[in-house]
C-alpha cells in the first residue's frame, strides 16, 4: 500500500504519465485478463507449452535415472553413432531408438534375461506392442519423473524396477543392442507410432535459407517450361506436395483448380510444374526432397506437406 502510494506521489510530478497509469489501473482487471489469456493462447499455439503432457514413451528415462543403474551411456547414445550403425535402414531415427530403448526398459518382462540376442528379439516384440498403444502426442520436454513413476506403476507391471534392471543388464552385455534395434525396426511403423505423433515439430529446426535455395534450384532444373506461353510471366503456380517419411513424393496437387479447369495456358504451366516435382522425385538421391529425411527426420509433421510456388518470371523470355 505504501509502495503504491509513493509510486503515485512521484508520478504526480509527471501529469501525463500519471493520467495514463491511473487509466490503466482503472481497467486493470480487464487488461490483465485479456493479456493473460492472449499469452496463454499464444504459448499454446506456438507449442511453447504443451497442453498434452506425459508421453509414455519418454517415461522410463527417468526411471533409469532414479535407479542407480548406469544406463546413461546407452540411453544417451550420441545420435551420430546410431545413425551410422543404422545405415542399412534408409532412415535411422535417433530419437526413436532412444525412445525404444527407454520403452524397453520400462516394459515388464521376466527378470532373467541372459542371452542378449533372444532378449533383444523379445524386447522388440514387446516394444512393438507397447508402441501400438502409444497415442499420438506432442511433447516438448520429457514428462516429470514423478509422473513417469506413477504411469509405469499403473501400467500393471509386477515389478518394474526389477525388469528394468534385467533389461539394462541385457543392454550392458552388448553395446550393439540399441543399434540392432534401430536396424530392425520397420521405419514406417516407427514413424507412425513414434515420431509423427510423438516428437513432431518440436525437433524441426528452421530450414536454412541455403537449404531452401537448394531445393528451389533443384526444382528449377527439373522444370521444363514452354517459354512462349501467353501470360506465363504473370503466373504463380501453387502446388502442394505430399511426402512420405522417406522423402518420396506421395502425391502432388495443383491448388487453383478452378483456374486450372478454365485457363488452358495456366493448365499448361501448372502441369509442367507438377511434372517438375515428379521428375525431381525420380532422381532418387539427388531429389531435392531427400534433405528432409536426411536432416529433419524427426520433424516429419512439418514437412510431410510442402507448398511449392512456381513462378516462371525468370525462365520465360516473354
Amino acid at each position: 500500500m505504501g509502495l503504491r502510494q509513493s509510486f503515485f506521489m512521484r508520478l504526480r510530478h509527471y501529469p501525463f504519465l500519471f493520467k495514463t497509469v491511473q487509466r490503466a489501473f482503472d481497467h486493470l482487471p480487464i487488461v490483465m485478463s485479456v493479456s493473460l489469456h492472449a499469452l496463454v493462447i499464444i504459448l499454446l499455439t506456438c507449442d511453447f507449452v504443451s497442453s498434452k503432457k506425459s508421453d509414455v514413451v519418454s517415461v522410463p528415462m527417468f526411471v533409469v535415472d532414479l535407479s542407480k543403474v548406469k544406463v546413461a551411456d546407452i540411453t544417451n547414445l550420441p545420435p551420430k553413432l546410431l545413425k551410422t550403425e543404422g545405415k542399412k535402414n534408409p532412415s535411422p531415427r535417433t530419437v526413436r531408438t532412444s525412445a525404444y530403448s527407454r520403452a524397453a526398459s520400462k516394459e515388464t518382462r521376466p527378470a532373467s534375461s541372459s542371452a542378449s540376442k533372444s532378449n533383444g528379439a523379445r524386447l522388440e516384440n514387446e516394444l512393438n506392442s507397447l508402441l501400438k498403444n502409444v497415442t499420438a502426442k506432442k511433447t516438448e520436454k520429457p514428462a516429470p519423473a514423478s509422473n513417469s513413476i506413477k504411469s509405469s506403476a499403473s501400467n500393471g507391471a509386477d515389478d518394474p524396477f526389477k525388469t528394468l534392471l534385467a533389461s539394462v543388464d541385457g543392454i550392458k552385455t552388448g553395446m550393439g543392442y540399441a543399434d540392432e534395434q534401430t536396424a530392425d525396426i520397420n521405419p514406417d511403423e516407427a514413424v507412425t507410432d513414434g515420431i509423427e505423433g510423438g516428437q513432431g515439430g518440436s525437433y524441426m529446426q528452421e530450414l536454412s535459407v541455403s537449404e531452401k535455395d537448394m531445393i528451389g534450384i533443384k526444382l528449377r532444373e527439373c522444370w521444363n517450361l514452354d517459354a512462349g506461353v501467353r501470360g506465363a510471366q504473370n503466373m504463380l503456380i501453387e502446388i502442394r506436395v505430399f511426402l512420405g517419411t522417406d522423402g518420396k513424393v506421395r502425391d502432388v496437387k495443383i491448388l487453383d483448380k478452378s483456374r486450372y479447369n478454365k485457363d488452358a495456358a495456366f493448365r499448361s504451366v501448372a502441369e509442367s510444374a507438377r511434372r517438375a516435382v515428379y521428375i525431381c522425385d525420380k532422381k532418387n538421391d539427388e531429389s531435392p526432397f531427400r534433405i528432409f529425411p536426411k536432416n529433419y527426420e524427426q520433424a516429419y509433421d512439418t514437412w510431410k506437406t510442402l507448398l511449392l510456388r512456381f513462378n516462371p518470371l525468370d525462365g520465360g523470355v516473354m
Partner: protein
Amino acid sequence: MKKVILWAFALLLASFQAANAELSIDITGARSEPMATGLPAFSAGGKGARDMGDKIARVIESDLESSGLFRILDSMAYLQTFKGIGDAPVFVDWQAIKAEALIQGHVDYISDRQIRVSIRLWDVYAAQEMYSATLEIDNKGWRRAAHMIADAVYKRITGEEGYFDTRIVYIAETGSPLKRIKRLAIMDQDGENHQFLTDGLNLVLTPRFSPNMQQITYLSFYKDTPRVYLFDIETGKQQVVGDFPGMTFAPRFSPDGHKLVMSMAENGNTDIYELNLDTRAVRQLTRSPAIETSPSYSPDGKKIVFNSDRSGAQQLYVMDANGKNVKRISFGKGRYATPVWSPRGDYIAFTKMAGGKFYIGVMFPDGRGERLVAEGYLVEAPTWSPNGRILMYFRQEPPNRYGIPGATKIYAVDITGYNERRLITPVDASDPAWSPLLSNR
C-alpha cells in the same frame, strides 16, 4: 481499451498464423527445352492400316518437332510397343528414357476409303491420360488428319491453339532479276500440296488471307497501275476492289472479314482508307500530308496499327478503327515498317531498318518491350501463325559479287527468337501470309 483488445487479437492471429504456416518454397524461373516425347509406331488393324499409321505418325512428328517445343525420342530406345489403343503404357519404361509425354495411336480402315485414327496422349510422369480422340476421315485426307492430331497434342500440352492444319500463300518468284515473274502460290504450312494460283502475267504483291479463308486480297499491277484485288480460292476468280482514283496497296482484311483497310496514294500523298466489302462504302481514316501505310487491325477490330513518316522518319502508330486517337508507339532508332497485330493481341510484329540492316521484331501494342527476333541483309514482311506464336517472313541474301540479287526464301521463327527454320519452296519465295486454322473455318 478497444485498441488494447484489438492489438491483443492481432497478435494472437499473427502468432496463430506463424505457428501453423506450411513450409513453402519458391521456384523462380525454369529451363526451356523441347519436351521429350515418345511417339511409338501406331498399332493397326491390317497391313494397309499399318502403312497409313506410319505415314501419319511421321507427319505428326515433323509438325511437332518443327514447332521447336517437342523433341520426338529415337524409336530405337523405346522399351514398349503397343498392340492396340487399349494397351496401357508402362510408365516406368517411358520414364527410363526420360519421355515427358507419350503419343499412342491406332489406325483402322473402316471402309475402302475411310480410315479411323485414334490417339491417346499421356503425361508420363504424372501417369495420367491427358487427351484422347478418334478421327474418321477420307484416306486421301490422311495428311490433314495428321495435322489435326498434331494440333490437338500441341494445344493440350501448350494451352494454345495449334497451327499445323493451316496454309501459306506467298509470292513465287522466277526469272531473271530484270524480268522477274511473280506469281501467287499456296501450300500447306509444311510446304506440301503446293500450287500456283496466278499465271504470272501481272506482278502480284502482299497477299493476305480473309478470316474465312475463302479469299485472298493482294496487290496486282494491271496495265502498270497497282490495284488491290480479291481472289476467290475456290472459284479462281479475281476482281478489283473498289473504284479508287489513285493507286491502292497494302490491303488487309478486318477480323470479321467484312472490311478491307488499305493505303491509297493520290497526288503524292498516301493515306489509309477503309472499304466496307458489303456496301462498298469507302471511308478515309487518316488525313495527313505524310505517308501513312501498312494498316493492320487488332484482333478485336477496334484499333489499327500503321506506319507513318509524319515525324520525319517511318514510325509505328496506333489509332482507333475510326481513325481517332492516333498515338505513336515506336521510338527506337531507325525506321519501322509493315506492322502486323498478333492474332492473340499481345504483340505487334514489324520490320525495322537500322544501321544498314533489317530486323524482324515484336513489341507490345503500347510500344514497350521491343524485341528483335531475326536479322539479316534483308528480312521483311512478318506474318503471324494463327496462334500468335510463330512469325514467318522472307529473307533475301546479299547480292553476289556481280551484283546479282540473292535468292529470297521464307523463314519462320518462334516469338521467343528461337527455332528459326526455313520453309522449303519449289522456287524463290517472298511475302508469305499465314492462313487461319482450317479446322476453325
